[in-house]
């Protein structure tokens, strides 16, 4: 049995593809991470106020999501409700993080792949070549990254590992001047994302996506607020094809899945053995109402073949930038954003378990903390979006590699093309190696 290891490029973090060859046939292909950092371990005994600051450092791309999920878990332990102003500020910071993260993925990681797959470019462009080839598109993508960054600086105090997000709310109250600046940023993000959506449609919508990238059968998991698009609050829902399987509150998650601390992988308690997907594609499958008419008309440009194809995730990510910009403009008009309240005190602990759930850019993120009898954190479970997606991703790259190797016998080509699938999933390896 020959093992071929190839380091992934143009992904977040350090991942390796392992290809197992048996009798000149590919038997298994896995995306693996050698690293393990042990956050679930060293957070034990740490103070509840400190934990969100520490978990933010799990990831430099999903920092706001990690910190907010953590704060929600701590607030669950104290059983406190946070102010409407703080909820709105958290939503704005989550939008800024998503705009930055999705734009970086499209620019540096997936756009060069799409251009090659659809024969628009012969080679995979380097960032500089891409800038020369598409100056307007790449300038727009840079602007989106910068807008996400600026909003984080304005409302979070820093571009990464935000200072203002603490248990009990957000330490910040924007002045009218800051609100006006933020409105301009999000309006610009909205018009840029409209332009990129149209460009994407013009470049790719009339083409047929390669069937090798069709998704196998899967089950979607996402948070939704009664079918509405809501990444901050709601309940969790499983859906298969057009059928909602089950909807449940966060405190009941362990009825459906769990994990062993310090071990990778999430165990699902279904009889149905299909793999689960989380993230933009899953949100697309589960959300029934975006509250924005244009979203549906944009989706109509793509035929049925696209909607079961992995490459469609690239479009949904751009669409989510548009949706988040649109909703952020609405939030900035909300009078509750001006009503400043002091943060609640964290004096009396009410529950020994605290669970925080949000939809991170890459999908469902759950933090579960447990306290011992002296109210010290003694157990931490982190359910990371990329961990949910790994079994489906590995299933896809194995099938794809087997087919391609059988036809071509070219292992270099297999290695190169597998990474297109991996990048379309947009794994966050920093998060997954928590």
């Amino acid at each position: 049995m020959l093992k071929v290891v190839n380091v992934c490029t143009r992904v977040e973090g350090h991942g390796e593809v392992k290809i197992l060859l048996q009798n000149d046939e590919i038997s298994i292909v896995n995306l693996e991470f050698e690293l393990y950092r042990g956050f679930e371990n060293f957070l034990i005994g740490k103070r509840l106020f400190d934990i969100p600051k520490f978990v933010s450092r799990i990831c430099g791309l999903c920092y706001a999501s990690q910190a907010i999920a953590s704060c929600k878990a701590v607030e669950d332990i104290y059983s406190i409700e946070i102010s409407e102003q703080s909820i709105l500020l958290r939503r704005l910071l989550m939008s800024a993080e998503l705009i930055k993260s999705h734009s970086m993925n499209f620019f540096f990681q997936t756009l060069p792949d799409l251009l090659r797959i659809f024969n628009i470019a012969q080679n995979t462009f380097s960032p500089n070549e891409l800038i020369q080839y598409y100056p307007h598109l790449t300038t727009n993508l840079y602007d989106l990254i910068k807008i996400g960054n600026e909003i984080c600086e304005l409302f979070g105090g820093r571009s990464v590992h935000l200072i203002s997000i603490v248990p009990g709310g957000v330490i910040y109250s924007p002045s009218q001047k800051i609100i006006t600046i933020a409105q301009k940023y999000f309006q610009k993000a909205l018009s840029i994302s409209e332009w990129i959506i149209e460009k994407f449609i013009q470049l790719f919508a009339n083409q047929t996506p390669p069937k090798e990238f069709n998704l196998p059968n899967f089950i979607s998991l996402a948070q939704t607020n009664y079918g509405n698009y809501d990444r901050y609050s709601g309940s969790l829902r499983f859906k298969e094809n057009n059928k909602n399987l089950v909807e449940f509150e966060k405190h009941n998650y362990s009825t459906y899945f769990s994990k062993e601390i310090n071990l990778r992988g999430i165990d699902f308690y279904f009889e149905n053995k299909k793999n689960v997907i989380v993230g933009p594609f899953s949100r697309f499958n589960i959300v029934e109402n975006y509250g924005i008419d244009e979203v549906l008309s944009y989706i109509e440009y793509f035929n049925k073949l696209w909607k079961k194809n992995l490459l469609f995730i690239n479009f949904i990510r751009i669409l989510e930038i548009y949706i988040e910009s649109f909703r952020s403009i609405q939030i900035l008009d909300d009078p509750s954003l001006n009503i400043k309240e002091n943060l609640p005190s964290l004096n009396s602990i009410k529950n020994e378990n605290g669970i925080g759930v949000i939809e991170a850019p890459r999908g469902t993120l759950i933090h579960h903390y447990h306290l011992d009898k002296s109210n010290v954190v003694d157990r931490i479970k982190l359910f990371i979006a990329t961990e949910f997606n790994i079994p489906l991703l590995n299933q896809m790259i194995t099938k794809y590699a087997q087919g391609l190797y059988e036809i071509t016998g070219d292992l270099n080509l297999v290695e190169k093309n597998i990474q297109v699938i991996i990048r379309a999933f947009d794994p966050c390896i920093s998060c997954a190696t928590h």
Partner: protein
Amino acid sequence: MKPRFILISMTSCTGCISTLISLDIFPQFLERTIINYFPFISDEKDINECEVALVEGCVSEESQIIFLRKVRRNAKKVFAFGTCACFGGILSLSSLKKAEPISNHIEIDGIIPGCPPPSKLLGNCLIRLIENKDITLSEKNMCANCPLRGNIEINSNINITKINPNPEEIRLGEENSECFLKKGILCLGPITRDGCEYKCIKMGLPCEGCMGPVSKDFTSNIINYLSLIELSQELRNYTGIYYRFSKPNIKR
């Protein structure tokens, strides 16, 4: 000739890299340099000769040491980029994992500290590196120009009972006028390098030391400092203070 750069991640969160990509001058950086290795955005798989290597993340695995040495052999100048590479970083909280600064294993030509490095500081450092100049950091501590600076002597009897204000007491900017230490809240400003533009202080929170010390070892600075003040017993036992961004440096 354009300077050649390589950007490398050890054990990290990618936050320093994401800060770099989000800088206003990043397009200019791409234009004025040749990127020889930068796995986050390019397909280049081998380390080649270069003028500057920026290394993000701490050393937590043996295999990283060999890789680091290869970087050192190929780069004219190597800089520790971000607090993990400079001092060990957040993984120092772990008692099971190693979290070493890269300088434990290779000679370095400078540091760009911060978790993440402040955008302005990082932008200035990059421009200087592109122009083949040395980078300069402030030699002052945070207190030197702190907006809350009063007439406080840090070696007078200060009783510290908290490491952060109670959430309901957090006040922003100008509403917050008194030094944290005076209020019995631990602030690591006295032993932390200036350069972050007081972002935490302005948000009503004390300095947690992410920029690292002005000189010498991180943890010994903290221990010396804490020996000057009265710290409650509960805080004395809390490793979340001492090992937040660095472990004691026992290997040189």
